């Protein structure tokens, strides 16, 4: 659990709602995901929206292929995952170059900003590099107040210009996971 989830009296942040509203505005219809605590609020919104199809995955690379199929069928989608899942996708990222389809992924970061678990650090440290080497543009949001603008830009270039884009949501934004108090 993340720090914010262990303090239920704390108000839920508004940035996940900002993301949801932008996805609605861009007519995003398929939302594949591997769950992450940082995405939990957004996933709840997606699950309660009839116009969106939430698609839980067994591994993140499934989501890349799903979105290619969705585009062939006339729908837009977005892949929600944690930074550790990015490495699972590498070969499937080929599809973003081969089909030049509007690929957007929102990635909650681990392995940075006060990380407790060393096992998260190697993949968290290479997440941005993996995307760039795969030909996917990287944007990052680190503060709640900038999420709306950055997501809007990411969705705009992905859906309007078919520019494959990854938006990293910093661990600083989400809060480092608390293992011991």
């Amino acid at each position, binding site marked *: 659990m993340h720090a914010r989830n262990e303090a239920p009296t704390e108000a839920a942040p508004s940035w996940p709602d900002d993301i949801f509203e932008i996805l609605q505005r861009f007519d995003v219809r398929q939302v594949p995901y591997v769950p992450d605590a940082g995405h939990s609020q957004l996933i709840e919104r997606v699950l309660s929206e009839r116009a969106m*199809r939430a698609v839980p995955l067994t591994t993140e690379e499934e989501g890349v*292929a799903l*979105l290619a199929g969705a585009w062939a069928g006339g729908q837009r989608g977005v892949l929600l995952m944690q930074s550790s899942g990015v490495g699972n996708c590498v070969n499937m990222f080929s599809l973003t170059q081969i089909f030049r389809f509007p690929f957007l992924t929102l990635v909650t970061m681990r392995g940075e900003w006060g990380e407790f678990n060393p096992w998260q650090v190697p993949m968290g440290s290479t997440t941005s590099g993996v995307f760039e080497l795969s030909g996917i543009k990287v944007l990052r949001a680190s503060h709640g107040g900038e999420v709306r603008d950055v997501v809007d830009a990411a969705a705009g270039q992905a859906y309007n210009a078919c520019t494959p884009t990854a938006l990293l949501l910093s661990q600083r934004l989400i809060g480092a996971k608390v293992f011991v108090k």
Partner: protein
Amino acid sequence: MSKANLLERRSVVSALLEGRKDAIAVGGLGASTYDIAAAGDHDRNFYLWGAMGGAVMIGLGVALAQPELPVVVITGDGEMLMGMGSLATVGLQQPKNLTIIVLDNEVYGETGGQASHTAANTDLVGVAKACGMKDARSLATMAEIKTFAASMQDISAGPRFASIKIDSANLERVLASRDGSFIVNRIRGALGFQPI
């Protein structure tokens, strides 16, 4: 390489697609894509030349986007094994218009005929059943295949899964288009979507 009494893959795929009507066909990389091309190029053919393990998920994405159209994924045992988790994902979504067909020759034919897991203990029909595929079966005769092909048009009774044991002979390649933008935009055009 050839074993007696096993079906010939090109005849199988031709029979599966003969009465396809508006169906979208997704071919896994390797011989399945050549088989679909050999059955006749089509605006609604989604050929894969890579992305091993992704064929079923591409089919699911199309099937969810186009619930009124039959969508059929035709792939090989090696490609299916690499994306076996996607059967669980399909089992969760229950797309009624999706059919998954594995042409199982029990070898990696493109790379020299090395044995795949289905040559020994892996039972893909059992996996599909256990993942919640309503209709999961083996097809062993051309008569069964023709009946099954007709049932693929029923978009109210999926998801379906069929495994067909085929002869492992390597046939001459029939090359489909390998230009991804062309393939995907041709399908989109056939469905009435404009380029960006």
